[in-house]
């Protein structure tokens, strides 16, 4: 992953999630990743991967800007629940929303992902 530019790394991540390439997604995450928004608070790369295994993700990138070590992106997310007995979404049910997401990168991997739901039109 270190041979990638920051933008390439991010595009790879979005593409991997959209292709359901779990190995590719996992390669983007630091072991001590902290991923949080108003719904989830996941404290490791492993916990984030467990989340991805419960929901199929579709990401549409609406805006992007970065500086070394940090990405800011506007993303439209669609999650579709896979079969899982304890999830609030029924199997196959989808939820779509837009967010402003800040991603901190260290040593070529995502270390912190923070998302806030965006109520404004894209």
């Amino acid at each position: 992953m270190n041979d990638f530019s920051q933008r390439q790394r991010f595009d790879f991540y979005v593409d991997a999630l959209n292709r359901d390439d779990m190995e590719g997604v996992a390669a983007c995450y630091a072991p001590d990743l902290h991923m949080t928004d108003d719904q989830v608070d996941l404290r490791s790369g492993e916990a984030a991967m467990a989340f991805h295994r419960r929901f199929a993700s579709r990401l549409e990138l609406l805006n992007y800007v970065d500086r070394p070590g940090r990405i800011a992106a506007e993303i439209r997310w669609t999650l579709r629940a896979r079969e899982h007995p304890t999830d609030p979404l029924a199997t196959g049910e989808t939820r779509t929303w837009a967010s402003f997401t800040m991603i901190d990168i260290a040593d070529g991997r995502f270390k912190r992902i923070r998302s806030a739901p965006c109520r404004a039109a894209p």
Partner: protein
Amino acid sequence: MTQPSTSPADAATAFARYIAAFNAGDFETACSYYADDIRLTIGNGRELRGRSEIVSFYTGVRSVTRRTITVLDCFASETLLAAELESEFLAVTDVPDFTSGPMRQGDRMYINSFAFYDIDQGRFSRIRATVFRRVWKRHADRI
């Protein structure tokens, strides 16, 4: 310089000036950063259109709270600036209908927000803010 620069390298400096004007209640300076058709969406989704509506809204906010915005981070391209902000609101009177929820005099609220600023010909044409975290510190809790 009273307008945002078109150079990403200068954007942070210009943005700091804009926020300083906003904190000081210097809306004439703050508005000089806006395009004529500025649209500003606050964290709860309400959209303010045009300089006068923005000034009217924040004049109202300033009449009942002391608000201080701190820029935690800011970076930009030619067309988009992203910022992480912390806003502190201190209620100077009871505000039962405050936009984020009722406040009593002395209450403080902190909002950690992410905001995107669209840049068109060196001015902000659209501002959209999202709330990442909201923390209340009630006056009664500190007594």
